[in-house]
Each structure stands twice: as C-alpha cells, then as structure tokens.
C-alpha cells in the first residue's frame, strides 16, 4: 500500500457549511437500497396506477354498473389509500433512516469524525423526506389528474380541494416518517419500530377512536388530529370521528412531532456508539 496522499488543506469558511452534504449522504443511503426503493415505488406510484387503472377499466367495461373513475369521491378513496400505504412506507423508511447506521456500526464511524451527533440526527429528517415525498407527490399527481380527467358526469374536485388534499397527504406521510425516525433512533431497532408503529397506526388508532367513552382524551391520538385537519370533502363520513378544534389538532401533531424528534435526538446524542 502506498500511503502518500494529497497535502492537507486548511479548513475554509465554506467547509463548515456541511449540512447539505450530510443530507445528500442520507439520500444516498436510502436510494441505493433496491428493495426499499421497489417497496416505496409499489406502495405509492404503483398503488395510484393500479387503483385508477382498475377504476378506469371497470367504467370502460360496464359504464352502467361502474361509475366514472374520477370525481371527488374517487379522489377521496385515492387519498385514503395513498395516506394509509404512504404512512406504512414512511414508517419503514423512517425506521431504516433511524436505525441502519446503528445496526451496521457505521454510526460509530461517523461519530469518530468529530461531527456533532445532533447534526447527524437532524440530517436524517430532510434526507428521508427528500427521498420519500417525491414518490408520494407523483402518486398524488396521478390521482389528481385521474380525478379531474375521468370525472365525466361526476363533480370534478376544485383546484383548492386538490391543493389541500395534496398538502394533507404529504403532511400525513411526513408525520409517519418523523415518528418512525424518532422511535428508531430511540430503540436502535428497525424491526421493533416498524412493528410498534404499524400496530399503533393500523390497529390501535381505529380502535381507540371508536371507543366513545374515552371522550376528549382521544384528541391526543394523531389519527384524530389528521381527521380534523383533512379536507372535509374527502372524509368518508363527511366529519371527523372526534370533535376537536383545528388549533388543538395542530398542537397535538406538533407535540407528537416534537417529542419524537426530541427523544430520538437525545438518544442519538447520548448513546454509547
């Protein structure tokens, strides 16, 4: 091995502005996981293509029995499905982003560079979202175009509803990612994080929200808050299961986000590497 390497250069002011490079590194780690990319593609863009492809085909085959593929109601179905599956992939992705460095031992290699552990943690948030949200945005765009383009006799969604639904969907998916990232950074385990959050999202949340005697305590569940902030026109029932103010819903989501990031960051900063 020849070890003669280039002469050292003194640090520059520009060199201290490193965060975009850390974010790019996080994106690189995620986008190079072929299985993960396939899963995310299938559960976002693939879901939209299959859903609207089936609706369009059914309507074309038997218009009397199957309504048009577009319209507000089908947009509602699309947003519901993309929200549910988008949250699942967000949880998988957040768990990977939060635990993979630890599980592979690379976290230790990053810490010995002298880089602040908090900056290593913060970089995972935009890194994961930069990777994930474009898939969700493309899937939603397909849903939105189909809802308008194939509305036929049904009322097409307004521009405002399309924008609000899109923002809502991105927020719901981003929330799932942040929650998983924080929990995975706390537990250091991808599998445990995915198991806990899928159980919470898919089983516990609907169960808790349906138990009426829990009263206002149900407002603390993110699912209730998302029901409240979602565009009313795309809610299946037309109104949220738990009555709460918009401010309360935003506070609940902000608290969950803040707590998830705080515990994840704290554990990243304090754990033995």
């Amino acid at each position: 091995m020849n070890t003669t390497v280039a002469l050292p250069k003194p640090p520059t002011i520009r060199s201290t502005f490193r965060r975009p490079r850390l974010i790019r590194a996080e994106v690189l780690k995620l986008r190079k996981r072929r299985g993960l990319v396939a899963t995310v593609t299938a559960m976002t863009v693939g879901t939209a293509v299959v859903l609207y492809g089936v609706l369009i085909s059914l309507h074309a085959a038997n218009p009397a029995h199957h309504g048009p593929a577009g319209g507000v109601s089908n947009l509602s179905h699309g947003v519901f499905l993309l929200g549910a599956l988008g949250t699942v992939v967000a949880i998988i992705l957040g768990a990977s982003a939060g635990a993979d460095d630890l599980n592979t031992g690379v976290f230790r290699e990053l810490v010995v560079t002298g880089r602040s552990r908090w900056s290593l943690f913060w970089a995972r948030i935009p890194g994961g979202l930069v990777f994930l949200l474009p898939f969700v945005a493309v899937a939603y765009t397909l849903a939105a175009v189909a809802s308008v383009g194939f509305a036929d006799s049904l009322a097409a969604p307004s521009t405002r509803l399309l924008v609000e639904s899109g923002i809502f969907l991105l927020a719901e998916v981003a929330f799932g990612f942040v929650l998983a990232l924080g929990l995975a950074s706390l537990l250091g385990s991808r599998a445990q994080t995915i198991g806990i959050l899928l159980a919470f999202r898919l089983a516990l949340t609907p169960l808790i929200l349906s138990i009426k005697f829990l009263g206002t305590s149900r407002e603390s569940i993110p699912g209730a808050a998302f029901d409240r902030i979602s565009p009313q026109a795309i809610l299946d029932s037309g109104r949220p299961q738990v009555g709460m103010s918009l401010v309360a819903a935003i506070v609940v989501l902000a608290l969950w986000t803040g707590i998830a990031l705080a515990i994840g960051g704290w554990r990243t900063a304090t754990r033995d590497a």
Partner: protein
Amino acid sequence: MNETPFVVETSGLTKRFGDREVVKDVELHVPRGSAFGYLGPNGAGKTTLIRMLLGLTSANAGSMRLLGLPVPERRAEALRRVGAIVEEPSFHGHLTGRENLHIVAAAREAEVHARIPTVLEAVGLSGRADERVKTYSMGMRQRLGVARVLLADPELLILDEPANGLDPAGILEFRGLVRRLVDEGRTVMLSSHLLDEVEKTCDAVAIVDRGQIVAQGTIAELRDGGGSHILIEAEPIEHARALLAASRAVSEVSDDGSMLRARLSDPGAVPELNRRLVEAGIAVRRLEPVQASLEQRFLEITSRFEKAA
C-alpha cells in the same frame, strides 16, 4: 493545533460499568511521531480506553487530551485530524466502497471528498471501489477501513486490533503501512493483544492489564527493564541450580527440566559464574546470554501484577 510532544495524554482516566472498573486511573502518554502499542490481554480495557478517547463512550473520572486539545470539551476540533478504526471497520454493505467513503467524507470538511480517489489508490482498492462492500473479503474491508482513516489526512491514527482477520501477507503489509505512516510524520497508536506484532511494529508501548497501565516506555526500555538473562544447560542440573541460586550475581533462577534460566543482577558476572560451575565439578554444556523478548517481559509484568492484586 498545538505541537505538543504527546498526541494522547490521559490523567486518572477511569471507566466503570456498574461496579466493575474496566479502565482504572490510566496515565497514558503517546509520543508524537511514533508507532505506539497499547498492549494487553483480551478484556484488559484497551477498546474501552480508545472509545473514551474518541467520544464513543464517556469517562467516569479523569482527563484526556488529543493532539493537545482537551476532550470532550474540544472533541470536534481534535477529531478533525484523527482517523480511527474501532474494533472492526463497519460499512453499509449495500453501498460501494467509494460510496461508503462519501458517506463519511460528508461528515468531514468539504475538501475531503476530493481525497477519495487518492486514498483508494493508496490502499490498492481503486479497481474494486465501485463494487458493493458486501462482496468484499475481510482483507478488502480492512483496506477500505484504512482508506477511510486516511481521508482525514490524520496526524494521529488510532487502530484497535488492526491485525485481526488479516492473513500473514496482510499482516506484513500492514506492518509496512504503519512504518510508512510514521515516516510521513504521523503518529499511529494501535491496540493489540499480539505481543509479537507490537514488538515488530511499534517504537514504544504501554502494557495494560485489568484496566491499569503496568508498564510504559520504549520497546528497548521495557525489554531491558527485565535485566540480563542467561540460559544454562549443565549436569547435574539440581547442583547447578543450587549453586546459581546461592550467587549474589543471580537474582532469580527458573528451571524447565532440562535447562536453567537465570536473571542476573550483575550482567558482568557471566565468566565468574561459568568458572564457579566448572570448579564445582558441573559439566557445563551450554551457557548463553539471552535477549529478553517483549513477550517475556509482558508475562513477567502481568504475572507480577496478578500476584500483587
């Protein structure tokens, strides 16, 4: 960066896991520009000390300085010019060697990215740099680990058991690498339980046992600290042993059944001892001064320490 004579200095450094002290009151001084061995048996606390130096775990007591800077207070600044491999080098297996270097380079200064081709060339991995790390052999992973260490153009390299997993050719190559790094003006601190490896690679050494440093100095100082020895093959052996044990020039005699080993308190007494053995009617077949190896000193020191404990 301060040009202190020592690149690593610790004082009273202590680490406990529960009630168990794994690093006890360590006073370590690693001279700048040397290959320094941190030598001790498995479980002696070598890796824990390295982990404390690098900020991977906290100390319970004591102080540390890296490159003259106090850590953890100025850890980030100090580690900018430190490269380290702790235990075995870890990578993302799904990324290529080059991509793994980019991941770590992103956590360092911006100009570090430009050094990636150079360090890959330096460790002979340029041709395989774009293959996934999960396809690499153990030796290639070690090389990639060294490349990652060199990314920082480090003044100080801290390598934890670097010979683990290397074949004899790899160990020989590694030994040459360490010497070249030292010749370039860098300091290499390596921990090892392999006495022979440390003796062949390092200029200075600290011997650690049960978390405590029990000896520290240059290899020659430590070897000489054991005094001069002679090997004697004589007949009858019991008679020779008794005569040597009675001599004031001999501080200790051991017997492996066929040969005597005597530690001399007076290295100049060899001719006199030979004369007395012959005059006593003992047939001396062999009398040979021996150079103590670091291994013998290590065993002496650690066993003495064991008795004292």
